[in-house]
Structure formats: C-alpha cells, structure tokens
C-alpha cells in the first residue's frame, strides 16, 4: 500500500506540474513538453497501482494500457511538431509576402483584387503563382486569402 501511494502520488505531482507548465508557458515546445510530462504522470499512476509488492506479480492490464498510452502520446507529439513546423513556414512566407507587397505598392498602384468567381481546388494557372505561393505545398485558391492582391 505505501509503495503504491508513494509512487502513485509522484505521478499525481507530475500531472499537476505538467498542467501548470502547460497553462503558464507560451512557447509551443514548452507546452508540448508539459503535456508529455503530465501524460508521464498519469502513466506513472497506472504503473504504480499495477505494482503489488515484490512477491506478487504485477497486474499486466495497466501495463498494457500504459504501452498504448505511450504510443498515442508519441503520435500526438509528432503531429503537433509537424503542425508547428508548417505554422512557422506559413508565418515566414506571410511575412515575406507582406514585405514584398509593401515594396510593390510603393512603386505602382495596388493590383486589382481577384474577381469573386467560383473556383475549384484544381483551378490554378501557373502565371498566378508568386514565390510566396510556392512555399507551402498543396495550396489551393481557398487557402489563399481571396483578398490577397496578386495575379
């Protein structure tokens, strides 16, 4: 009982610590680490309650649950990091486009806005592409702001 409580309690502390860090910190990587620590805490509670002393064999069911949980956590981590990388790309290309459109409007009048016509995702003429459009993959007209002056 006491070892279970000792270890399970540590798991709860880790959960609370991760939760605190998640709420307090701004940077995404720190939030992600915080979630993983909180998750580690929850898994630790499962492992602790599976432990039944050094004589009895441990309960295998929580062990299997934790294994599933670890794989789920790493999957989510991978997806979060990929989304984050894509967000950085989108932000940088948006910043690039901003800089360019500023210099463009200094030399000439703003280009006319795109006419509101129905467009399908395939509809994309090569001449419409600007370097900023080329950066993120799979761009469709809907992904661009229709009000973005270009083309």
């Amino acid at each position, binding site marked *: 009982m006491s070892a279970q409580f000792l270890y399970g309690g540590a798991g709860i502390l880790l959960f609370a610590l991760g939760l605190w860090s998640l709420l307090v910190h701004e940077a995404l990587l720190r939030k992600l680490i915080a979630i993983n620590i909180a998750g580690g805490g*929850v898994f630790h509670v499962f492992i602790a309650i599976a432990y039944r002393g050094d004589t009895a064999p441990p309960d295998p069911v*929580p062990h299997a649950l934790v294994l599933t*949980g670890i794989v789920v956590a790493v999957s989510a981590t991978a997806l979060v990091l990929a989304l984050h990388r894509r967000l950085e790309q989108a932000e940088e290309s948006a910043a690039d486009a901003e800089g360019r459109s500023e210099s463009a409007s200094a030399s000439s009048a703003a280009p006319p806005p795109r006419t509101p016509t129905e467009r399908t995702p395939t509809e994309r003429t090569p001449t419409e592409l600007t370097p900023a459009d080329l950066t993120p993959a799979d761009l469709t007209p809907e992904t661009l702001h229709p009000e973005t002056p270009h083309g």
Partner: protein
Amino acid sequence: MADLLILPVLVPLLGGLLATALPVRSALVGTLAALATSLSGLGITLLVWLHGDLGTVLGGWGVPLGIGLSADGLSAALLAMASLVALAISIYAGSYFAGSAQARHFWPLWLLLWSALNGVFLAADLFNLYVMLELLGLSAAALGALTGKREAIAANLRYLLVGLLGSLTYLLGVALLYTAYGTLDIGLLGERLGPTPIAATALALMVSGLALKTALFPLHFWLPPAHANAPAPVSAALSALVVKASFYLILRLWTELFAPIADIGAATLLGLLGAGAVLWGSWRALRAQRLKLLAAYSTVAQIGYLFLFFPLLASLPPGTARDDLFAACVLMALTHGFAKAGFFLAAGLVQRKAGHDRISELGGVAQRMPATTFSIALAGSALVGLPPSGSFIGKWVLMRGAFETGQWWWLPVTVLGTLLAAAYVFRVLSRAFGLEPTPLQFVTNARSEIPALLLAFASVALLGLAAGPVWAILGFGAAPA
C-alpha cells in the same frame, strides 16, 4: 448477431487503410467505404430497433478481461444520426475535393475519424474510449488543418493540445476508478460504484476532461477558430459529429455510471455553464463577421442547451417526465447534428461561389444559389427552434420541465437564446438577397447542394414532424403531444 457491432468501426477502418494505400483511387475507395459504413451503422440501428439492446465482448474472454461493445437506444440514435450526416458529408466532399490534391489526404483521415466516432458510440470500456477519443481528436485536428492556411493550422494546433489535455484528465479519472473498482467495463463499474468521494473525484476529472473536448463554456475558446477555418465538409463533421461524441459520453457517464453521485448541485453547475454558453455563444454568433464563424459560435450555444437538461434530469424521479426530458435532450443533439452539418455545407458553397464568407457582402447569393440559401434558411430555423423542427420540441420539453421542477430561471435563458438565434439567422438571410435576376435553375451543382439541402430538411421535418421514433428507440413511450 451482436458480433456485428464491430462492423461500424471495422468497415471505415479498413476503408481508411485501403484509401491510404491507394492514394490515386482514394476518392473511389472512400465513397464506397462511406456507403458501406453508413449502411452498417443504420443496420445496427435497425437491429437495436427490432431486438432491443445489443452487447458483445470481443476476444471471447468475457468481461472484465475483454473489451465490451454495446448498443442501446442512446447509442443507436447517435449512430443513426452519424451514419446519415457523415454519408451526406462524404457525398458533398466527393464534389468539394474533386480533382484536388487534398482528396488523397482527406479520405483516409475522414474514414479513420468516422471509425473512431462509431467506436465511441459503441464502446463499453473506459480505456477503449480513451483510445477512440484520441483517434477522433488526432484525425479531426489533421483534417481541420487541411487547407494549410495559417489561421487553420494555428487553430488546430491549439485544438490538438486542448484535446490531449482533455484526454489525459479523463484518463486520470479512469486510473482512479480502476484502482478502486478493478474494472474498466462501464456496466460492471455501474454495479460497483457507490456515492464515495473517490467516485466523485473521478467523475469531476472525467467530466471536466470531456467538457473541454465538447467545448462547454468557458472551455469553448478553441472551438470557433478551429471550426470556422476548416474546409467546409470538415467544419460540418467537427461541429455536427465530433463534439457530439464527447457530449454523448458525458450524458452516458452522468446518467448511468455516476448516477449515485451526480446530484443536483453538480448538475446545476453544468446547467449554469450551459446557460453561459447559450447566452455568450449566441451573442458572439450575432456579432460574427463571417458566416462560418457565426456557425461555429452557434455550435457553442447549441452545446449549451444540451447542458441545461442536466439539472432538470437530476431533480426529477424516474418516470415519464424524466424520460421525456432525456429524449428531448437527445432529440436536440440529433437535430443540431443535421442542422449544423447542413448549415456548414451550405456555407461552404456560398464561400466557394462568392470567394469569401463575409456576411455583410453576401448580397445576391440567394438569387444565384436558391437551393443553398433555402438550406441555410431551413437549417437556421432548426437552430432557432422554430416549429416544426426537432429543437422546437426539445426546447418545449425543456421549458415545461423547468416549470414543473420549479427551476424557472432556465426559462429566460432559453427565451433569450432563442431570440438571439433568430436575430443571427435573420441577419444572414437578410444579407443574402440582392437585386440580381433569379436564374432558372434551382439547383446548380447537385452533388454538393443536395446533401446540404437534405440535411437541413431532415433537421426540420424528419426530426420535428416524426420525433416519435427517437422516443421509441430510447425505449420510452410515445412522444409528448
């Protein structure tokens, strides 16, 4: 026969795997799998309708070693709604993504999402539900970011983190329950659970985790940007189906597993949060500049209505009045599923046609897209709760229940929410008309306009004029007159 309960999970899973392996044919594989999934879901509903509750334990080990699947009236009702709405979304998506490189990403993720959704409705095991919720959350966030827009990615990144936090909190509650009661099966736990402080802590953890996932006010902050920036079919799926999964789970856990603990005080807290959601969500929907953002805030409000039922359910003894309230709550959830999916699909068509979805500049859309505007009007009337929609009956039973239990304070909330909803729906419709001449065609693109229209129509007519089957499948008597 109960063996077949796995099919609504297995069929879309296999379809998703095949669509992953055959990217060139993903649309074809996806459409066929969507049809088969829909049929399997409706088939299970039919079985429950004919034979009553079904249950099986996978692996041949029996509970508590194996994982149980079960379908009762509540599962069947949501399964049927999901089957119809998801099929309509699939048909619409076939046209929406036609020829796009996004199609090959959409179909596998969409089928995995559908598999998880059905899995949540059919699961009878608390840990299996955790895995299902994670599959649902991951595939939903990936689908929501499919446009590649900066706002969409940022919103879905937040959605993903929030979802993870919700699942972890839920999982900690499951850990406490397993420690105390030694099983993960909902049925067995229901028999063993007593009004202990441990169970109360577990309830608090699990319900707050799920409330975060279902975007109950004030935990709704992540929903509007995530739902408003997804591609239209995904928005429809997120708002109509995905948030329902965690709501369904709260309803089931609250009324079945935690019935001995979930007393009037806790239920009133949920009701208050629901009231906050109704008022705040409706207000923000009225102030929204964009059509899809309006629809997303309207989802926050509609989720709120569902939680207004909890304090009434808690204060009524078992009997016809309570059954009516329960059925009305389910009916409202189903109606919102159809109506909001129809609304989002129609909004997506408007966005395609107009090139944007700014409400103030929608002039003339009604003339150019009569069927789509009609869909928005129909779905909107169901969101407001005009007769004969399903939510009219739902709100009526809700208000009657508030009178009968003496909790009159829920009445002004409902009335005010309804007025605000009428205002935001009317605002959209009043902007949609312009001075352009009316074309001769009612429907201009059948494959995408008809699913939206049928969904909107179902929310008004099918669930309003014929609400009886909902009462019947939940195992209650006739619907209130």
